Every structure is written in structure tokens, then in C-alpha cells.
């Protein structure tokens, strides 16, 4: 015999937490996210385009954007979080003023990529996925920027740079250790 589950078993003990109260999204950020959703939510397979749209607009995907996106696509928050955390490109922390993508892959390794990586980390005083204390640079690894004949390669805010020596890196960023 099935257990008799009275409706009170499922009664909430406390009122549900209103997401809006916990959200730290500014009015401007909310507006930006809603604009992206309005533009893209009806695409088939809309989640990746939406996350790109939010990250392009705000520089990152704030964790408080997750329930808003989930609700609009009729997905669970876990599903949206799962997608964000699966893809290396999406970040959930506000990045520095400039985002550097440094190539770590074999073709760059063959022309001094490893030494450049060490130089970049020492010069900026940070590891991958970190932002400098002054908030100027965020450093991310890339596994190939498709610039494999003229490495080592670096992307600065989407602009590709080839044959990046330690000197050239210092000149491009104006940072010295």
C-alpha cells in the first residue's frame, strides 16, 4: 500500500525566498540582461547565444543572472549553471579592464610559449583565471588561437597578436615586473 502522504507533508515551512531580494544586479545590468533575453530567447538552442550576449554586454555572466536566464528559457538554474561551468569561455567574476588570452598549445610551445607564459605570469604577478590587483588585466589560457605559424600568440580584448616575445608583451601591455 502506498504511504498516505497528506498534503501537509509538502507544505512550506517558510515563505519562499524572493530572488529579487537577494539579487545584487544593478538596474543597468538587469536591463542589459533583459535586452539580451528579449533579442535571443526565441532562437532554437538559445542558451549559448544568450550567455555570449550577456558576457559581451557585461564582461561576465553574474551569478544573479542565472535565475533570470533560467526562468526565461524555462530551464532549471542547475541546467544554466551547468552550461556556464562547462565552457571555459564564460566567466562568473567581473574581469579586469583588459582580458588577455595567452595560447598554451603545442605550436606556441614549439617557439617559446612556455617561457613567455612564465614571463607573463611573473610580470603580471598572477596565475591563469586571475586579475591583477590594480584591476587592469585578467589572464586566461587559450588552447590555440589559430595563429600557429607565427606564435607565440596572445589575444588582447579580441585583438590577435603574433610573435609575442617577452619584450613585445611588455610593450603591448606597458607593464614591467
Amino acid at each position, binding site marked *: 500500500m502506498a504511504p498516505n502522504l497528506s498534503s501537509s507533508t509538502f507544505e512550506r515551512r517558510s515563505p519562499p525566498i524572493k530572488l529579487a531580494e537577494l539579487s545584487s544586479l544593478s538596474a543597468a545590468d538587469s536591463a542589459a540582461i533583459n535586452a539580451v533575453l528579449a533579442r535571443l530567447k526565441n532562437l532554437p538552442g538559445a542558451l*549559448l547565444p544568450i550567455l555570449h550576449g550577456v558576457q559581451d554586454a557585461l564582461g561576465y555572466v553574474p551569478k544573479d543572472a542565472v535565475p533570470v536566464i533560467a526562468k526565461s528559457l524555462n530551464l532549471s538554474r542547475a541546467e544554466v549553471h551547468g552550461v556556464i561551468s562547462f*565552457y571555459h569561455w564564460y566567466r562568473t567574476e567581473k574581469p579586469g579592464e583588459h582580458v588577455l588570452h595567452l595560447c598554451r598549445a603545442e605550436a606556441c610551445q614549439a617557439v617559446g610559449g612556455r617561457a613567455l607564459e612564465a614571463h607573463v605570469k611573473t610580470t603580471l604577478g598572477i596565475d591563469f583565471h586571475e586579475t591583477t590587483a590594480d584591476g587592469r588585466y585578467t589572464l586566461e589560457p587559450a*588552447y590555440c588561437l589559430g595563429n600557429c*605559424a607565427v606564435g607565440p*600568440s596572445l589575444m588582447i580584448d579580441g585583438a590577435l597578436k603574433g610573435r609575442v616575445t617577452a619584450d613585445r608583451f611588455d610593450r603591448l601591455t606597458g607593464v614591467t615586473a
Partner: protein
Amino acid sequence: MSALKEAVTIYVPRDSTAISLGADEVAAAITAEAARIGLDIKLIRNSSRGMFWLEPLVEVATDAGRIGYGPVQPEDVASLFAAGLTHGARHPLSLDLVEEIPYIKNQERLTFARAGITDPVSLADYRAHDGYNGLTNALAMEPAAIIAAVTDSGLRGRGGAAFPAGIKWKTVAGAEGAQKYIVCNGDEGDSGTFADRMVCEGDPFVLIEGMTIAGVAVGATRGYIYLRCEYPYGERALNEAIKAAYAANWLGANIQGSGKHFDLEVRMGAGAYICGEETSLLESLEGKRGMVRFKPPLPAIKGLFGCPTVINNVITLASVPIILDKGAEHYKNFGVGRSRGTLPVQLAGNIKHGGLVEKAFGVSLRDLLYTFGGGALSGRPIRTVQVGGPLGAYIPDSQFDLPLDYEAYAKVNNMVGHGGITVFDDTVDMAEQARFSMEFCATESCGKCTPCRIGSTRGMEVIDRLVAGDQPVKQEALLRDLCDTMLAGSLCALGGMAPFPVLSALNHFPEDFQKSSQQQTPRVRVAS
């Protein structure tokens, strides 16, 4: 009557490798210098020829043909004009007729026929260079005849798996489904490869045309180009070209009055290498985590959103228009054995003349590395090359005479893959490279199957112990056993092929894994 004289045409590539070396600054300097000296010029941002050591390569149209100068930096521009650049005069950076440069002259360019020649986003330029001849022919053919032409050409998937394209198309054509899709795999994540990028940036119409032909052939009305987000320049060029194709009715409803319909959209990836695996890519396009699917069902039967889907690599689809234009026989006449046509080889890493070499199958690595590539950039001996990306084997000099051919490579556990060749000189540490292969696999594993998810991390640890000289015989046996499990037990090529670079490093360069044990037990010299 100098006022009536036509403005001289100057070309500066918009290819991202050229830009990464200063092409935008050179283009700006040329415009500024021409204005300063009061000269009327027409500046075209062409695509790259794929001779990257010469970039930024500036070309000038003359009566004799296109004269090149390179590599040009902004500070060279004034002296180039002073020397008479506009009529192709000599200068220390002169390369004379670009088409006569042996690197270009000795290639067989079919897929890359327009590379470096046209303005990538000009539909008129594309049309003037045989563009849309293939689709025009296809629109007059029965769908089955289009598929037969692709099958007869011998074209195989250029993404790495080398599956016959015509057979895949035929399966989709025969599958039941109200909606079918053409998906282009532009998630070119292999290090040492950039051919897909060059098509997207340098000749986007050829990809659009190839996908439209595929759509007409199998009855698909919708296509997606899944492009990796590391390629923002490619995204811009593709979107410009798609817009132009729609405006001229080469996309959309009733294409050129044929009654055929094809819509096309670019979707950006998000930095996951695994999404280059076709089923993972489809999951990603559906807006999900890029987890590999079990096969069967094949994507041809149940692909995107559960519908029959053709999924092909950029180069595969970009090779279709010339097959429909010049005929299957023309394409098939290039190549050897069961590897028909041409392969755009990408010379990368430590190589003097890095770039794109499109050759018929059958060319040897030695030819590519020395005749085309000119040896290592560092001037040191080439010790090894990795062919086929991060999952490809490290090949030693003793195998450099192997002909580039899918079957010949597979026979010795190497793979042609997407045709990327990454060159290393004799300073490379092969134990470090083997460790990186495992590290890369651990970073990029989707996590669905255990051999890949856990094996890669354990592999890193075992290599660390092996190199540290901690019970090396035991560690090597363990590493080989682990590689065997990954090879046989992984769900897709990531875990299933990551052992190739590891084992090839271990087999061909065992001395690199023994450094530490040699250091710890130095040979004792007997005083004489």
C-alpha cells in the same frame, strides 16, 4: 591625361595572422601616405595567400600581374611609395610576381583557389573568380546526382575522421524527417591548424556555397556554422558574407528562382575543445553542455534537435563547390589510393616558412618540411613533428618519407587528422610534451566516460613519477597499460586518441623520459 588614369589597386590582407603582425597599421599607413603625396589609390583588404612569414604582404596590381612586398611594417610604407610601389618598382622588400613565388607556384590549390586573391566579403569578386558556378550547376541537377558527384569525387571528411562525405549525405537524404539540417563544424581546436579559420576569414562565400549545395542535395533548409569563439575575425567575415548572400538571393527563399530554400546562421562556441567532436557540437548547438553522445543513433539519422543532420568540417564543405563546378573526375584525379583530392596542410610551430600548403595527397612530410617549410625557424635540426593536432602522434625523422595518405598514416598509428603539422626543433623535451597531452585531455574532457576523465589525470601523475625516476620500469608499464585502457575504452576520440602523442613520444624518444634517473645515478668514471 593623368586625371583619367585609373587609381592603382593595393592589397593588404585582413586575415587575422596578417593583422596579428601589423596589417591594420600597414593599411592605415598606406592610406595616410597616399593622401599625403596626393595619390589616388584603391585599397583592398584581401585574404592571405597563406605565406605567413611574409605577412603583412602588400600587393600592387600592375600590367604584368600582382607584385608583392613583404613583410611590410608601417615604417616601411614611405620608402615603398618613394621607390615606386605603385608601378611595382624594386625595393628591398620586393618579392616580384607573387604567383611566381615557388611556395605558391608548387601548390595545387582547389579549395583555396581564391585565397589571397579576392576581397573575401565581395560577392562580385567571388562571382568573378568562379564563385557560385558549383551551386548554379547543382540547382539544375537532381539531388541524387549531386550526391553521386560528391561520392564519385572521393571527398572524405577533412575534419580528421575521413569518412566519405557522399555516403554521409546519402544517409541524410534517405532519412525521414520534416526538418533536416546542415551543420558546419568550425570548432577548429587542434593546435597547429588554421585552414578552417582561413576559409571563414578569407573566402567565406565558398563555405556558404558548399553548405547550400549540401542543403539542396539532402533536402535541408537550415544550416548552422558552429565557429569557435577564439575566431572573432572569422565570425565578422562570415556574417558580412551571409548578409551579402541573402541580399543577392544566394540564401533564403527561392534561391535564384530555383524554388530551393536555405537559411544559414553562425553560432559561436565557448572555448570547449570537445565541441569539435560532432555529437558534442550538436549538444552545444542545442544550448547544452558539450557532452559526447552515444552512437548510434548517428547524427545523419538523429542529429540536431533529433533531426537528420549532415555535419561536416569547414574544409569538406568548402571543397564541394569546385567538385560541382569542375566535376568529380577533376577533383578525383588528384591524390593517391583512397585519399583523393587535395589536403590543405598547415605548417606551424618552429618552421621558417609557416603557412598553408594545399597539395594533392601523397606528398611526403620531408617535402613539406624542407622544400616548402625551409626547415626549423630556429635554424636547428627538426627533431619531431606532431601531425593531426594535440591527439596526433609525434613523428620522428625516420618516418618523414611517409606519403601523406590516410591509410599509410593509420598503418603506423599516425593520423593525418585536419592536416596540421607542428614542428619542434631539437630543444624539445618529449616527456614534457607527453605530459602536456595528458594535461590537455584532463582540461578538455567532457567527463562522460571514465578512461578519459580520470585516466588523463592519472596519466599526468604517472609521467611525473616516471620522469622523476621513481620506480621507472613499473611506471612505464603502468603508463602503457593506462594508455591501452584509454585507447580501447573511451567514448570518443579525445580519450581514445590522447594516448597517441604520449606513446609515440615514449616509443620514439625514450631517452627524454630517463633524464632524471641518469642524473640521480651518474656514471662513475674510472680514473685511468
